[in-house]
């Protein structure tokens, strides 16, 4: 009866919000189970709107893994769009899961995926809409256990006070284990929230923040993390899946009615990255490199095509052209995709491993442009960041694209990188201009009619577990001055210049390197109008500065300060495989302007091979 009433109220508002289909579920392949048959009810929350969250591969994988367990039922929850969120609050309709329509408070375990720092307030907004107290310490036995996961958990300290436990690393096995621990303790009658969390902290890859005390030095830096029990680890080592060919993969993903941001088949080729770009967190935390076999991938692609009806297959990884069997895989796929009007798309291409053969295989021609990421404008700075891309590689790759009929090329750069000078910024303008000239050097009969080179420049944000984790971000004024300086340097009319809002990057830097003292400011953000800060139209820098000021947070301490090499870092509790020594070595090489070869050429001893697994390149494992 209560549920009827709630559904009634929900349906009452759906007609007046945009994209109502996002709030009712019922899509093809959603998993329904009988509540009486399951012992653990799990909700996976993606703190973004449906059309973004439904595209996330990680969420699909966890949905698959958890629902494969017969006594676990995992459902999906997304943040409502702002218009829906307002109506829900006005009509007092709690946030519900799509499959059962039950409110989040009915669940045993609520997993929240943290993909991007700016989504922290969105996650808290979701708790508010669900009627769940924000702070872990305020949630009694009647509330679900809140688990955090995803890339942000490599430094989850800013949200540590809100979560009961974090799953560090790949969650395929880990979250099923956690659910079974919950089930077993409930069945044995030994369950209390405290006992459960203590037991979870002993499982590999789980970090229970409330069981670690943090003390601070007088200068505000962290003195130490102290475990409250002797039997929980001093450092939490991330979990990995050893053999990706054997890991569950969603072959029947829930198919939304509406168009989502990545509306296609997604094939994950491998995890990890052989490159060691010094600003890149993903390149470090997903190590060691584990590839899937072309046979397995082709089998999964065929199955996904038959189950979904999508007409595009996206081959994803951190650097798709670095997949060691890319030619074999694309040959296998093309043997059946072309005649069925299915196209292949390869995001994340590197200019040095991009070839005409590869270009010919991707029928993405009709879909507009192609994107490369040189990241910096001069060879010197590209050596500092270890991008290992040369100008001639880029111009050659661009030439191949033009000769295949591409008219639009997008180049990604970063500004504010350590050691950057104005000369490096001029280099961006020059490189873009050179890329335009390559078009006119391409034979007329091969190239398109017109050319446009889009230069998209983001601001450097120092991220945990990178060689640049200690570096301070340029002050806001410097970042903004550099953006305008570059604008003046770009004079070629065929070059379009876009740059990211430096203010967003600054707040992102605060959250990325933040610690537990940020929690109160995030509560203000969630409740005072910044819940959707990941959306540029809802981001308000002055409000954020106000939240920080009112909660005694100095943003420069986190964003702009150069952290000491011997300082205890907020993320020192986590072991992501790559060692701090390796990162220090890489930092020293950066300042010496020395590059480091890729894993395919030479083992640089990053340390991630300790984690084991069926690694592709780690020679120590061969």
């Amino acid at each position: 009866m209560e549920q009827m009433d709630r559904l009634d109220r929900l349906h009452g508002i759906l007609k007046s919000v945009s994209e109502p289909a996002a709030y009712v579920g019922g899509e093809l392949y959603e998993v329904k189970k009988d509540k009486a048959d399951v012992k653990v009810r799990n909700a996976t929350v993606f703190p973004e709107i449906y059309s973004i969250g439904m595209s996330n591969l990680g969420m699909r994988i966890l949905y698959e893994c958890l629902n494969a367990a017969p006594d676990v039922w995992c459902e999906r929850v997304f943040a409502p769009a702002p218009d829906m969120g307002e109506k829900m609050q006005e009509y007092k309709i709690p946030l519900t899961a799509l499959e059962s329509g039950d409110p989040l408070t009915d669940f045993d375990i609520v997993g929240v995926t943290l993909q991007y720092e700016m989504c922290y307030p969105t996650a808290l907004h979701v708790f508010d809409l669900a009627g769940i107290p924000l702070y872990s310490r305020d949630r009694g036995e009647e509330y679900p256990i809140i688990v955090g996961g995803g890339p942000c958990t490599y430094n989850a300290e800013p949200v540590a006070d809100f979560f009961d436990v974090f799953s560090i690393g790949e969650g395929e096995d880990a979250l099923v284990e956690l659910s079974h621990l919950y089930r077993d303790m409930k069945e044995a009658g030994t369950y209390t929230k405290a006992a459960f969390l203590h037991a979870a902290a002993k499982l590999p890859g789980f970090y229970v923040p409330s069981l670690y005390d943090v003390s601070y030095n007088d200068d505000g830096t962290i003195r130490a993390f102290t475990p409250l029990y002797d039997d929980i680890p001093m450092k939490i080592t991330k979990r990995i899946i050893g053999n990706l060919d054997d890991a569950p993969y969603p072959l029947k993903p829930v198919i939304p009615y509406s168009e989502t941001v990545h509306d296609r088949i997604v094939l994950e080729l491998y995890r990890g990255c052989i490159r060691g770009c010094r600003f890149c967190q993903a390149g470090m935390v997903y190590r060691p490199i584990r590839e899937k076999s072309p046979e397995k991938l082709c089998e999964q692609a065929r199955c996904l095509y038959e189950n979904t009806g999508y007409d595009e297959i996206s081959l994803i990884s951190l650097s798709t052209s670095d997949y060691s069997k890319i030619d074999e895989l694309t040959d296998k796929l093309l043997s059946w995709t072309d005649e069925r009007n299915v196209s292949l798309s390869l995001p994340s291409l590197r200019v040095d491993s991009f070839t005409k053969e590869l270009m010919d295989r991707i029928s993405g021609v009709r879909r507009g442009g192609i994107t490369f990421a040189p990241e910096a404008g001069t060879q010197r700075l590209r050596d500092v960041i270890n991008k290992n891309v040369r100008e001639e590689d880029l111009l050659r790759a661009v030439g191949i694209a033009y000769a295949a009929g591409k008219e639009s090329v997008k180049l990604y750069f970063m500004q504010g990188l350590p050691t950057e000078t104005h000369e490096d910024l001029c280099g961006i303008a020059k490189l873009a201009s050179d890329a335009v000239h390559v078009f006119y050097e391409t034979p007329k009969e091969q190239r398109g009619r017109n050319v446009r080179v889009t230069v998209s420049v983001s601001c450097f944000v120092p991220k945990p577990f990178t060689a640049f984790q200690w570096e301070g971000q340029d002050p806001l004024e410097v970042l903004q001055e550099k953006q305008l300086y570059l604008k003046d340097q770009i004079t070629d009319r065929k070059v379009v210049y876009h740059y990211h809002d430096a203010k967003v990057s600054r707040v992102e830097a605060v959250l990325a390197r933040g610690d537990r003292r940020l929690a109160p400011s995030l509560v203000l953000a969630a409740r005072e109008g910044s819940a959707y800060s990941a959306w540029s139209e809802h981001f308000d820098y002055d409000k954020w500065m106000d939240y920080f000021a009112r909660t005694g947070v100095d943003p420069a301490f986190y964003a702009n300060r150069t952290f000491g090499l011997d300082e205890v870092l907020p993320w020192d509790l986590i072991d992501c495989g790559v060692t701090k020594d390796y990162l220090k070595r890489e930092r020293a090489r950066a300042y010496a302007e020395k590059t480091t070869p890729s894993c395919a050429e030479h083992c640089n001893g990053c340390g991630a091979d300790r984690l084991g697994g069926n690694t592709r390149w780690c020679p120590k494992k061969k």
Partner: protein
Amino acid sequence: MVSEEKVNRPCDNTPIRLRFRFRKVGRLRYVSHLELVRTVSKAATRAGIPCWFTQGFNPVPKIVFGTPMSVGMESECEFVELRLTERVEPADALERLNAATPAELTFLEAYYPDNKLTDQCFAQYEVLVRTDKNAENLAAAFRRLLSDPNLTCRNLTHGKASERVVGRQTGDATVVATGKNTLRLTMTLGTSQGEFLNPDYVMIALDQATGFLEGSPIENAYLIRRLAALDKDKKTFR
């Protein structure tokens, strides 16, 4: 690169049309027309129906829908036509398409039509209204308003003043109180080009005249359902 094979595919100007009638009820009423087009397109691929693809640079299965409905309305009689490259057994196609779509999207029949989708000229609707007012009194008010050929729906677009006279098509409408606080309204409205009238406009006009939605604890106190499709003589369209 577009392969030569794709460009030179035999171009049949008269692909075979297979028509499906389907039901759009329950949660499916929140699925917009565009979302439905996508869904059926992918479902046809999943079902292995031999679809004829459009011949442009981005070939997609050719799909034509009957008169679209606004989000939030239910229907017992929606039509979609797939263009095929070869004849298939309709019953078999029906079964396969149903297996490839969510349970709530039910295809009821499949057949090779001898008329065009545009031959549908009218649709019959029912509107179930819940009210906290006296249903008998409200029904009487509705009857009086619906018989007025000048009944007008105002302020249809935000910001801009625009209006539509709806009373011209509501003369035959019937209203019955089905309970103390519920009533049922039936009407037949045009669906052909130029004559199309959205049933929601009638409800908005009624609300503007009576204020029956005011004070309702929920925003959406009525449900519109399309019951039947009719041809130009108001006979069942099939």
